């Protein structure tokens, strides 16, 4: 019985990591209806950026993240400004194929630069520290911290969206980009800013991904799929829904893994399709595609 409580707790906390993966995807989709197939690879890119900062400057992961985040913001801004903005407003195909091509380029560029070796961001003793809840029940500090960060990121994104001028512009462009333009909003700049912000969220996700598990240049697409599933389950455009989606995927995966370790990923995918069949628009839909 206790082992099941443990499994469910672990699953819910794993959902925090998936919500972090998904928050950036959800943000981008919510504002510009762009589905970024390179999202997973951007997470891996961010993890390597943090790793590079750690090795080059000899600092810890958190400081390395603080150095890498502004750079990643600029990369996101430039990517949107020079490449992705050109694909918008021309139908489904161009953004999809351009980000798909980008995904292939990123994977291979990372392979070229960092080899196929598995890496990890070492964070010292905090990696294995845990919090005892009961005699036989303890939860890891890192998963707890991940979950708390996911909640914090979503709170911050909601504040950004509903309490600031930039957020108002984000929402206006999301609701009707043409009218927003008439009101003097430069859509393309808004999109570039949004991608920059998304890259900072991606960097946070990468920080936790790198500390909690090994990563190599090829793991991006699987992360994209988890993130995507969380966004769809939660409902398009709802950040809190994305958190719920992440938790559902996390729960399904840990429960599946408990029954048979080989079923972990499969269970997550199947949970996704079950929700899709019952609630095609997700649990808490806000935006209309």
């Amino acid at each position, binding site marked *: 019985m206790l082992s099941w409580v443990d499994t469910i707790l672990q699953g819910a906390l794993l959902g925090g990591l998936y919500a972090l993966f998904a928050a950036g995807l959800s943000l981008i989709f919510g504002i510009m209806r762009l589905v970024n197939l390179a999202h997973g690879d951007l997470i891996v890119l961010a993890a390597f950026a943090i790793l590079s900062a750690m090795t080059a400057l000899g600092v810890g992961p958190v400081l390395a993240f603080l150095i890498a985040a502004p750079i990643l913001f600029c990369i996101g801004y430039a990517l949107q400004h020079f490449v992705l903005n050109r694909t918008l407003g021309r139908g489904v195909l161009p953004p999809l194929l351009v980000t798909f091509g980008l995904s292939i380029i990123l994977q291979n560029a990372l392979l070229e630069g960092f080899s196929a070796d598995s890496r990890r961001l070492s964070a010292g003793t905090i990696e294995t520290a845990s919090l005892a809840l009961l005699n036989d029940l303890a939860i890891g500090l890192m998963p707890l911290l991940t979950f708390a960060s996911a909640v914090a990121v979503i709170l911050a994104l909601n504040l950004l969206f509903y309490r600031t001028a930039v957020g108002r512009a984000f929402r206006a462009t999301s609701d009707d980009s043409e009218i927003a333009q008439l009101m003097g909003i430069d859509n393309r700049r808004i999109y570039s800013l949004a991608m920059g912000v998304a890259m900072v969220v991606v960097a946070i996700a990468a920080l936790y991904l790198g500390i909690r598990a090994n990563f190599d240049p090829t793991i991006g697409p699987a992360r994209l799929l988890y993130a995507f599933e969380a966004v769809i389950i939660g409902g398009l455009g709802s950040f809190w829904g994305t958190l719920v989606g992440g938790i559902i995927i996390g729960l399904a995966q840990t429960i599946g893994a408990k029954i048979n370790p080989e079923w972990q990923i499969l269970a997550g*995918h199947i949970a996704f399709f079950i929700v899709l069949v019952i609630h095609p628009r997700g649990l808490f839909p806000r935006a209309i595609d």
Partner: protein
Amino acid sequence: MSVHIRFLEWCANLCRRSVLGGDVIGPSHDHVDASLSHGSGVGTALSKFRVETATRTSRIVLVAGSILIFVLVLLPAFAGRTLVQEMIFVFYMLGLAQCWNLLAGYTGLVSVGQQAFVGMGAYLLFFMISTSDIDPLIAIVAAGLLAGALALPTALVVFRLRGAYFAIGTWVMSEVYRLVWAQVKSLGGGTGMSLATSTTFQIFGIEWIKSLFGVKTSIARDIIIYWVALVLCLGAVMLIYTVLRSRYGLALAAIRDSERAAESIGVDIFKMKLWVYMVTAIGTGMIGALIYLHKARISPDAAFSVLDWTANVIFIVVIGGIGTIEGPLVGVIVFYVMQTYLAGFGTWYLILLGTLAIAVMLFAPQGIWGYFSNRYGLELFPLRRILRANHRDR
């Protein structure tokens, strides 16, 4: 009120008949009338019009194409083994590209999960061959049909997603299939398995080929696979051309251009999409079965590889020209040349391929063929219906 409704009904009927019943989409009333007379065979006063699709180029292409096909059929008689092997690769990539093109370029179903059907066909073939003494050729057809049957439940789920979300949904579906096949221990589980050489030699007509060409069994097997690949590839091209020339082709073009408008003139969008999805799944499944009969070794990661069976295929279609039959033909040649001369560079080759695809999408979204066809008005496989007057004095 009722007059108003009746008028709307009349308009809708007119449109429906002109797009789906007849052969012509005409900008003016004259043309619509001509189409109705063409469709029903009445209206002698209007018989001074005729509808044509063939152009002079297309007639030349038909002749040249027939000669080319004839040469390709006879190729194993004078070509070395390497060339035959490479042509098999070209044929199956072209076949996959045509299937994806029909799906994404003509129907707007942008899937990045077609590896689901490549892997499904391949695994079904391996399952059939390793559990029974079925002829591999029959197994290819059966694997394709079964993959197509599985496309039905797949479609009912992934069709709930639209546009870009449909794309990732198909990808997740193919991951599900990969993980399920990796559970089948009799087929090697996650590590995969090889076909015993003897089983792939039990293919229809192999003795005949051996004596005809005087070759070893393994080469005779390659020759049969070469012909099957040629048939599947030509079959894919012919099928797509026939579909697009039919009234369903018009319905597909209407769906691609505007779903809402297509629906308003009576196109059953869901049925059309489902139909195309299943047909391409059958084609993709048969090609997948053929690919792995040729390779004779399978693993879940290889058979359900998004890079090999979807990314490369998308690059072929996009670089060549999406939404045209000629595009994949051009694309596969570019891809083959790049693969032959640059694949040795490994990661740099893939970076280049990705960059090229992005550049084409951004700056020449119609691809190489689209660019030339726009510029010089070329059409090897004409789809446009041209209304010509029947001049008595000509």
